[in-house]
């Protein structure tokens, strides 16, 4: 891969700004089933959300297609931290890409415990998932309140020196305030955004389609929302040198570049992979082509290049 795509992200040296997102790529090797797919094409891979104990997750159906997107309510199905650390991590090839854990819990203590176990493992960094909309306890119950978010981040910070990325919820009034609280609590980077809560009903049976009643909306449907959230968080995080992993509906190089311009340092691919498992290759070359055409020597130079001169940025629309 071209050196122009290489960059530093909260202490990690990445070969590409593309990060494969939690919950979309299993525990790091699932997509290698697909011919032509390679973990080497991406800068990092975030593993499935992991809790202290194994979780079976939510009942079916867990997925539903919506206009330009999809709802999911997996419910953090995972084999538990023990199995992840002792069986899964040793089988991953860390020479191909960076691997980031996705830390979940129903209590502050659980977040800290899972973080501590990952600290004592080869994992490159940890993403604190305080924004999962699909579990009854934890998740957005923490992520939608800046004070609670900060408590979780502090507890994780206390038990690791590895890079900590906090994954912010879009399901709250003031994401910038939450970002500020997480940075103060010791977060090294921010992931913006997790899925947006949604629902679908089968009108024939008059029942919710998703087994968990509600789910998280992802895909292109949420892209403009995600882009604005990245822009808002960048105003807080940018000046403090805290990088952003931008995500939400990115499918093409042009989408990725929008997020970089809005303030992201790295960009995430989740739902797009379901349609095109080889999307990362195309996005890498699309970004490279753009860098060449606009005379940038490194992808890092794109971050926050949004030109706002002579613009009034008012929150209201219409």
């Amino acid at each position: 891969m071209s050196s122009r795509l290489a960059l530093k992200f909260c202490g990690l040296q990445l070969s590409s700004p593309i990060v494969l997102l939690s919950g979309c790529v299993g525990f790091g090797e699932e997509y290698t089933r697909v011919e032509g797919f390679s973990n080497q094409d991406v800068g990092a891979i975030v593993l499935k959300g992991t809790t202290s104990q194994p979780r079976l997750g939510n009942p079916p159906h867990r997925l539903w297609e919506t206009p330009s997107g999809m709802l999911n309510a997996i419910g953090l199905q995972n084999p538990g931290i023990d199995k992840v650390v002792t069986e899964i991590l040793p089988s991953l090839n860390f020479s191909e890409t960076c691997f980031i854990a996705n830390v979940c819990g129903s209590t502050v203590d659980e977040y800290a415990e899972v973080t501590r176990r990952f600290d004592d493992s080869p994992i490159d960094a940890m993403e604190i998932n305080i924004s999962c909309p699909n579990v009854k306890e934890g998740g957005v119950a923490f992520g939608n309140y800046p004070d609670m978010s900060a408590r979780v981040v502090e507890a994780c910070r206390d038990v690791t020196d590895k890079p900590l990325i906090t994954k912010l919820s879009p399901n709250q009034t003031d994401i910038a305030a939450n970002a500020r609280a997480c940075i103060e609590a010791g977060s090294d980077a921010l992931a913006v955004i997790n899925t947006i809560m949604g629902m679908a009903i089968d009108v024939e049976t008059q029942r919710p389609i998703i087994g968990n009643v509600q789910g998280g909306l992802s895909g292109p449907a949420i892209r403009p929302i995600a882009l604005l959230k990245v822009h808002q968080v960048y105003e807080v995080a940018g000046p403090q040198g805290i990088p952003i992993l931008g995500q939400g509906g990115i499918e093409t190089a042009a989408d990725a570049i929008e997020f970089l311009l809005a303030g992201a340092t790295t960009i995430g691919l989740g739902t797009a992979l379901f349609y095109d498992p080889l999307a990362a290759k195309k996005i890498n070359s699309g970004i490279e082509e753009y860098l060449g055409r606009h005379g940038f020597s490194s992808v890092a130079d794109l971050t926050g290049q949004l030109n706002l001169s002579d613009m009034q940025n008012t929150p209201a629309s219409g």
Partner: protein
Amino acid sequence: MSDPTTQNTICLEEATIISQQSFPGDQYILRVHAPRSAARAIPGSFAHLACGPAIPMRRPLSIMRAHQRKGWLEFLYKPVGAGLEHLKKQTTGETLSLLGPIGNGFTPDPRRPNILAIGGGVGIPPMIFLAESLQNDNRFEVLVMMGSEVPFPFELSKAGISVSRVPPTASYGVTLLEEWGTPSRVASKAGYEGCFQGFVTELARIWLSKLSAQELQKVQLLGCGPTDMLKATTVLAKNFDLPCQLALEEYMACGVGGCAGCTVLLHTPQGPTMKRVCVDGPVFDAYQIY
């Protein structure tokens, strides 16, 4: 988890539509040129198809036939939902992105030479594929029983291959299967000519109940179809003490094991566990499902 045996087993190819035929009852048979997937397809496996740019998610379709030399795959579907509604409008020469073949197929037990393959509705395709792939395998004798509440999208004719102890009202079979030397019988509540009048599992029960204990020891069940049919098939398996494998369907996102969106709860000797229909299945032991 890293497993060299699964790496590079699924290919992504632009499939060209060879033909798309519609049949009464809103059924479609789609044949596409997808040589790399055709070379590896097995009965029970499926392909994950992009149905058009306006449709965000792929749709899984069971493979009904695969022709290795000519490089085509064939599917049977009913257009439920926006994705397949879109797919049915595609015509010869158009291309669609195909991810496949995916999934573990049926693994019939050679100690049980008599396979009763039960297919219902759009669950019929894997049974056709199974019959075709085992036609020259002298370890097994396959009897296919199919049920449908809409006209069968295949040519039926008076069964030439006799099967002892099937009720005489089930007098028709699928012509193509007859050509392969595989006996088949059809069931429907709709009263079609030559069909057993009732559910396919009722037809199966009548046949099984006439077998001796010794004969039953040679029988195994394979099934694919709507949930009620799968449950009834499992009841048959339990009543007659037969091994039984079922191919399941569930909504899918990735189709390659990455999202855990397609899981089914299995009751294993080690306790309850969630398995992904796409890559851990779609074929599972019926006794672990129901």
